[in-house]
């Protein structure tokens, strides 16, 4: 195991941010961490990075206890923060050099690390430009380069694709896969379900400071395989239909997004649910079924949409 978190507790006054959480991440995985706003993902990563002290529990990274070997462990961990944490008035090269120096790299390792990190992120030709001259995608790539300069064994990426164009997003996702193929274990935190689905070998869903589900995408889908998802398009948004649907014994969950009502039912027979639309006088324009996705798993387990807000 590259990370072993046991019985972790973190309180902020009366707020229990991490609630007796345990987690294991194997070496070589791309581990996806999903959770809604305030679920405790950032607190969890901050504790793993030694930025936040824990009230209870232990964290072992590379088999060593974090509290006792923090400096040594940090030499092999990289963080791509959600915010673009680079100096706007320094060039890309100077930014990457700075982080390389912070990891105490020798002159030779520093040069090699900087060259590799810039090349990996496709910024070699822009190394003398300042981030203020970069597009959002380029800045995100520089943010990644700063975390790769010391060639970490473990890299934690917190929402690395927020606010960028699809082309840059694909570039970053491919980079994550490539990093992983080079032997780097990745913890990938994202609100983009499709990203997690496409690149993560293991996924954990965090809610209210606890891991409420963990496994591969298939294993998680299995958790709600007996559920049926029905998507009903209606002519005009009607929120009262949700209460009606939720009151039905066969309906596990219902929600509305614009003109589409999404119904999760344990019963394959959806007549009862569809009748509710007729009874409420809601005009149905389209009906379709859906195979369970991670989004469905997430909704079913947490009762909340993943993108209610960013954490």
């Amino acid at each position: 195991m590259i990370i072993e978190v046991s019985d972790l507790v973190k309180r902020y006054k009366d707020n229990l941010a991490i609630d007796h959480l345990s987690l294991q991440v194997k070496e070589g995985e791309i581990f996806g961490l999903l959770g809604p706003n305030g679920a405790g993902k950032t607190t969890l990563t901050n504790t793993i990075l030694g930025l936040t002290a824990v009230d209870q529990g232990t964290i072992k990274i590379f088999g060593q206890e974090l509290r006792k070997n923090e400096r040594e462990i940090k030499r092999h961990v990289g963080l791509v923060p959600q915010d673009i944490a680079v100096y706007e008035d320094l060039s890309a090269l100077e930014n990457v050099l700075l982080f390389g120096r912070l990891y105490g790299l020798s002159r030779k390792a520093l040069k090699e690390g900087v060259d590799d990190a810039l090349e990996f992120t496709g910024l070699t030709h822009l190394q003398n430009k300042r981030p203020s001259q970069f597009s959002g995608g380029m800045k995100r790539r520089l943010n990644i380069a700063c975390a790769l300069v010391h060639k970490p064994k473990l890299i934690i990426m917190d929402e690395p694709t927020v606010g960028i164009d699809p082309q840059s997003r694909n570039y970053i996702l491919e980079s994550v896969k490539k990093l992983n193929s080079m032997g780097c274990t990745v913890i990938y935190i994202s609100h983009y379900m499709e990203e997690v689905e496409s690149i993560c070998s293991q996924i954990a869903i965090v809610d209210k400071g606890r891991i409420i589900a963990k496994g591969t995408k298939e294993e998680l889908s299995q958790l709600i395989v007996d559920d049926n998802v029905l998507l009903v398009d209606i002519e005009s948004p009607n929120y009262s239909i949700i209460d009606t649907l939720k009151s039905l014994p066969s309906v596990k969950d219902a929600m509305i997004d614009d003109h589409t009502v999404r119904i999760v039912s344990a019963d394959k027979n959806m007549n009862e649910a569809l009748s509710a639309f007729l009874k409420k006088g809601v005009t149905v324009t389209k009906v379709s079924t859906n195979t369970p996705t991670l989004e469905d798993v997430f909704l079913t387990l947490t009762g909340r949409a993943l993108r209610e807000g960013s954490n």
Partner: protein
Amino acid sequence: MAVFLNNLKRFMKSKLTLGLSLMIPIVFIVVAFSGSGTQRATVGIIDHDGTRLTKQMIQTIKGQADVARVTDKNQRDQLINGHVDMVLIVDKGFTSSIIDGRPMELKGYHVTESNVSAGLGAFIGGYLQDMELMAKQAQGRQQSFYQALDQYNQNHLRLNVQSADGQARQKESTLNSLGFVIYGCLIMLIALPSKLIVEDKEKKIFDRFFTTPLSLKSYNAQHILSYVLLANVTIFTMLAILAGGFHASFGPSIFNVYVVLLVFSIVAISIGVALSAVVKNTRQSNALTWLITTPLAMLGGCFWPLEIMPSFMQKLANFTPTAWGVKALTKLVYGNGLSDVIIELSVLSAFAVIFFLLASWRRTDIAH
């Protein structure tokens, strides 16, 4: 040393930082030195003795200050209304007491809040000391004393006296300027660290730094070191301007003054770094910088002599690094060496250590 090197780069790239670090103290020096250098005291003298000595003394004072006519009746009003900075009363028998070797005190009154008369007071004190010395040599013989006095007034001794007075005034001006230099350093060196560190926090670079093996103590120490380097440049510039441009009198060695200013700068930087540990944004940092620096400067005697403050304020001043800096500089300017300011330097160093520890105290959480 990554943070140190990075800060140097940030200084070089920020023209505002570089400009301010040089301009603030320079502006303060020019204002302080120009202002104090042109002041000339007006003294009112009431001569009840009316001897050759007292008349000669008044003539000598005229070379140093404007002398106004005052009487016993109006002397108080003249002083209060600011028509004179100082009133001197020469009592009957003053001259004979000096010649007989039992010098009578020369009564002098001045407004407490004014330090304009300080240089003149020092000059008169020196003049009277010379008279006492001549009286001693004359062994009570009036004729011998006046012969010596005539020589004193005619020969080179007079030039020496004037030179001593010039130095006293120059020392006073230097001290005034150094008070403003301390204030300038205080503003710059508290504002700069808190600005840069708070910027790191606002951009989330601060949190990111500590995902690397860098410790908070090392981060703070490297910040302090980089500002010390910048402070060196500023102090060199300031001393060069004071010495070259204003012929400031620094006592036995300008190097001693440099050492005290450098130690004081480290205290100011440590305060700035400690401040950055508690503020959340640059607005708070700016507001607190002014809130801290001005009272520290006022209480510490940067703008006026500590002695003119009430005794409880003087006691309170002992808890400010500015007061210890001013005390050390005053001693140096008035002829003492570094060994005489060991206590002041030790107290300043203790201030620096305390603020550094406050800044580097490992809080439970770096990230919030």
